[in-house]
């Protein structure tokens, strides 16, 4: 598969805001290691899923690739070119090809913009239409593409006059209007009711099939990840702990963390939780990252070595990567 986006040792560190006085007295500024050395490749027309709990850095990774958050280290290659080296003009062009869809359709649409303005805005910002008629045409087409079948009737509506599903479709139309090649979908359905989720997911997969769009699909829901993606990457505290094809990661997880996650995947027909011994505690704060393997304090199988050395992220099986000392022996 041809590589569309290639991420190499991506790092995003935020300085925790401290007072002027504190920095005066030479205190070391604490750093949030939101993303701490993440590498993966995304092929053309591929759906790669970035899964993990909140605070694992998956959203930040997605935004850093689009430079909505400035990376502090590593490389992001888009079609072989480093996104971080883009100047303003090139960045603008890049942003036409790489789009983002957000989690909450109630929040991701400007409540004071009509449907038409929302979808037409990317065209206007980038000066892509010569005439009003052309603009209308493209907006209508994008709306249809996103599964909204009576586009012209919707033009003058406001987002709050639409249902949740329609809103998310509108958000997708706003991304589609520029004919992107790459979309970061940040939990696109987690705020939607179950009964309308599938429709949106289907739309996204269809678009991949028809237009060859590559997706970076960010979610905390492993069962969804398994359903829609080609490959899944599991993140924990700013690092990818496991990456492989969807089936392999879910059915034959290598990393203890993935195993724990998979074991609690909700399903209506079986009782899992009551019998399981669950992971204790919660994901620690990314300011005080544990030494050695980041997962060791919660790992049921932790060995003394895990406390000291950082495990190597390597290809354990063909196409299946993981970072765990237990796999080394």
């Amino acid at each position: 598969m041809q590589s569309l986006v290639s991420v190499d040792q991506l790092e995003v560190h935020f300085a925790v805001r401290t007072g002027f006085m504190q920095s005066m007295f030479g205190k070391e500024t604490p750093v949030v290691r939101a993303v701490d050395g993440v590498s993966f490749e995304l092929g053309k027309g591929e759906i790669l899923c970035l899964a993990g709990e909140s605070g694992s850095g998956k959203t930040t990774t997605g935004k850093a690739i689009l430079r909505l958050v400035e990376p502090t280290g590593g490389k992001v290659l888009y079609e072989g070119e480093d996104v971080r080296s883009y100047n303003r003009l090139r960045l603008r062009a890049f942003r036409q090809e790489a789009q983002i869809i957000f989690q909450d359709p109630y929040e991701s649409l400007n409540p004071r913009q009509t449907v038409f303005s929302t979808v037409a805005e990317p065209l206007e910002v980038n000066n892509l239409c010569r005439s009003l008629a052309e603009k209308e045409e493209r907006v209508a087409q994008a709306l249809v593409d996103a599964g909204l079948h009576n586009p012209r009737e919707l033009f003058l509506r406001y987002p709050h006059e639409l249902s949740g599903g329609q809103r998310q479709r509108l958000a997708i139309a706003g991304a589609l209007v520029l004919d992107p090649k790459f979309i970061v979908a940040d939990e696109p359905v987690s705020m939607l009711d179950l009964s309308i989720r599938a429709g949106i997911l289907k739309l996204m997969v269809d678009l991949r099939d028809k237009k060859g769009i590559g997706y970076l699909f960010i979610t905390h829901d492993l069962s969804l990840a398994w359903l829609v993606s080609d490959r899944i990457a599991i993140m924990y505290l700013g690092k990818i702990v496991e990456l492989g094809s969807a089936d392999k990661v879910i059915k034959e997880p290598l990393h203890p963390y993935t195993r724990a996650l998979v074991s609690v995947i909700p399903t209506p027909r079986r009782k899992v939780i009551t019998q399981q011994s669950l992971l204790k505690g919660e994901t620690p704060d990314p300011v005080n990252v544990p030494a050695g393997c980041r997962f060791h304090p919660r790992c049921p199988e932790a060995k003394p070595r895990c406390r000291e050395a950082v495990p190597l992220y390597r290809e354990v099986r063909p196409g299946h990567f993981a970072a765990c000392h237990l796999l080394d022996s």
Partner: protein
Amino acid sequence: MTLLEVNDLTTYYKLKEGRVRACEGVSLRLEKGEALGLVGESASGKTTVALSLIKLLPENASIAGGSIKLDGKELVTAAEEEMRKIRWKEISIIFQGAMNALNPVRTVGDQIAETLKIHDKLTDREAWQRTRALFEKVEIDPDRVREYPHEFSGGMRQRAMIAMAIACNPRLVIGDEPTTALDVMVQAQVLQLLQQLREEIEMGLILITHDLSVVGETCDKVAVMYAGQIAEYGPTEEVFTRPAHPYTRALIAAFPDIEGERALASSIPGNPPNLLYPPPGCRFHERCSEAKPLCREAQPRTININNHHYASCHLLDRQVKSCRA
């Protein structure tokens, strides 16, 4: 032994535009120590049911009819003074979003001890001792009783809320989306804790959620709500394996199951109705793939399918079927 019996509960909200029929003709039964899951999508009236049960409805809402019997005692007509004694001692509730449900300027322990002082008339010392014991029970370090809510993580807050809910050993706990905002792992932890506690102190549990899996995990019975009404009601196993109502069927089908086939299910077309102007007939008919002309006209009856398994759908109604035939 029946702990709670709800019959034909109807609650309306008054808005300027008219009445919102948030909950209409809801009937439920809960045996002692049993867990009931109340499932529904957003705005299906789940929370209204919960608030009606404990009679903490907002000012513009009122119970318009039906009865709620706790141990045979009627709550709908009970005076506020009486309800105040019943609340927490008999029924307690865990609200969704524990950050906002705890008073930010008082310590967590203080808020739990307060409950004990009010209902069990404990002295200050006894109350704090019991609070520490409760903390231990929900697996929080008892030394943290004097901390403020903002010093707790999300999971701990929800645990503290559970500790508060079980403080007076109530016979019924209502959990209103208690795990919604939590990560899967923490959600599993909390559910596990709830399950353990329920077995330990033999309390009844009504778990309100939009997540089918949570119900499957913890509940003996499930009630599926749609647009303010109960669509289907029965033992969890039974309902999940043999769903009778088209809505339940569609809902279960839409749920991704990693043990099933790796394919996207079809979603339910359309949107839930606006409860200000509910559609005539069956409220689901607009989205139902199997709807008949009758569904548009008449409200379906509640049909007893077998052994405590009920559903409200014309398609199941033998009388209707025979009529047609």
